[in-house]
């Protein structure tokens, strides 16, 4: 198993309600999630806006510390592990962030952004690796010399993807990474991820609200609603016969490229 997650709970202090003295009340965002993610599998995570998908992702990467429950990554319990210990493992699990612009340091060139993590983990042949990563996401190599603000939205998103895959991690959490891409780049990125999964045994958790993409890429799907898992299952089964009203509502609301589709 790549991940075993048991009764995961996570809460934030609600600073808007903080009394003058004493601690702020807490809002629970993840309310007891349990699921397994086998090695080499692709898990789709769908759910409404604000349902806790990005928070779950950040908890799995241990950017946030759970308030209860446990997260086991590749046999190691990382629930409350210290950052110093985690640092040694960080090459093995990576995250691609939802907001491309803010996840790129504005005062660093694309080449430096991709090479940074590689250098930290002592990998050699930086130039070749950066070039290769840019090729894989379909960006010209000359983009290594550009600053993030000199790119379009979709190009920035692909820089984020390149940074994560260049490290060759065992696990990637991709948070809404294709929503800013046109169909052609989308296909390219999805095919790339598919290849990495098949050929290098990458394990992938794929947060998206685009169910057409989920249906193609993922083996299993997990539907999150207000911090709880409302439905989980094989992709095909879930799409054929969604059990929950919420899942059905999600399916019905997808806009098809067809002006005649009913859209009340």
């Amino acid at each position: 198993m790549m991940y075993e997650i048991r009764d995961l709970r996570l809460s934030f202090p609600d600073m808007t309600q903080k009394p003058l003295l004493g601690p702020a009340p807490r809002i629970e965002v993840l309310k007891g999630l349990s699921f397994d993610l086998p090695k080499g599998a692709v898990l789709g995570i769908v759910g409404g806006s604000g349902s806790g998908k990005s928070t779950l992702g950040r908890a799995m990467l241990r950017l946030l510390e759970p308030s209860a429950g446990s997260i086991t990554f590749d046999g190691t319990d990382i629930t409350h592990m210290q950052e110093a210990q985690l640092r040694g493992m960080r090459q093995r699990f990576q995250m691609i962030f939802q907001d491309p612009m803010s996840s790129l340091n504005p005062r660093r060139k694309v080449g430096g952004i991709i090479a940074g993590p590689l250098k930290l983990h002592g990998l050699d042949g930086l130039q070749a690796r950066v070039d290769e990563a840019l090729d894989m996401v379909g960006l010209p190599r000359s983009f290594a010399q550009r600053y993030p603000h000199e790119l379009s939205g979709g190009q920035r998103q692909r820089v984020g993807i390149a940074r994560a895959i260049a490290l060759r991690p065992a696990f990637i959490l991709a948070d809404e990474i294709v929503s800013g891409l046109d169909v052609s780049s989308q296909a390219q990125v999805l095919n790339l991820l598919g290849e990495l999964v098949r050929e290098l045994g990458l394990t992938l958790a794929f947060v998206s609200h685009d169910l057409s993409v989920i249906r193609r890429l993922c083996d299993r799907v997990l539907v999150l609603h207000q911090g709880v898992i409302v439905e989980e299952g094989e992709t095909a089964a879930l799409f054929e016969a969604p059990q929950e009203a919420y899942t059905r509502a999600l399916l019905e609301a997808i806009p098809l490229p067809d002006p005649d589709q009913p859209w009340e």
Partner: protein
Amino acid sequence: MSSYLTIKNLTVRLKNGAPILRAVSLDVAAGQVHGLVGESGAGKSMIGKAVLGTLPRALQVTSGEIWLDGVDLLSLPASERRRRIGATAALIPQDPLTALNPSKRIGPQITRRLVDILGWRKQDAEARALDLLGEVHIPDPARVMRSYPHELSGGMRQRILIASAFAAEPKLIIADEPTTALDVTVQKQILRLIGEMQARHNTALLFVTHDLGVVSKVCDTLSVLYAGKVVEEARMQRFFMRPIHPYSAALLAATPTYTNPDSSLTPVPQTVTDAVEREVREHDLRAGA
């Protein structure tokens, strides 16, 4: 039907001369939605920025006209143009997180424009902001008003920007991929809301997206952009029935739909992109001559 925003032969170049937009022309009528589709890096956002006068410093309008409500913006002095745009147009930007100030609470960020530019009373502006947050289906708007941007989810931030664009009831909205972070149910509600607001205030809307599904639901007309050149301009119904340009047809064919799980993920075929590339190069030659 008169058009509210007209762009004529707009060419934008990098300072070193490389073209980013190639003689782009388009019209958006009051009360209409004009879609702008095209691949990543085609120049969609730059069209919006050129209209609003916020092009990055490295880029420059080298020729063309931008008419807003019967006035050629590019012929106005900078201050007058800024004032005009500030009073009539609003942008829903592509990067929600970077568009919000990380060190300020949400409330003042929405109301600032109303108070500072339009001279509203602070309480009125706050009441309006609360209403709008409710309308974009943000749960617990009062709490969100007092939150900082990083305490919110991606979709919430995006809806906040939609709300604040509508706050001042602008006559022109440039929406740059406004629903990328929204799940489909919320997206549907938001698109419907945008339609309502736009009908109510007779707003002209330039809607940048790459999601043809969305285009088919909200747009009246659309332009397809490739490498900064408009390759097809069409009414929406006609476009989906009979796309004329091969690139448009390929784009439609490549759009995945969940109802058809067996269709594989295919990029736009090489032959098609090669043909458009050739077209663009010919354009450059003619423009150079």
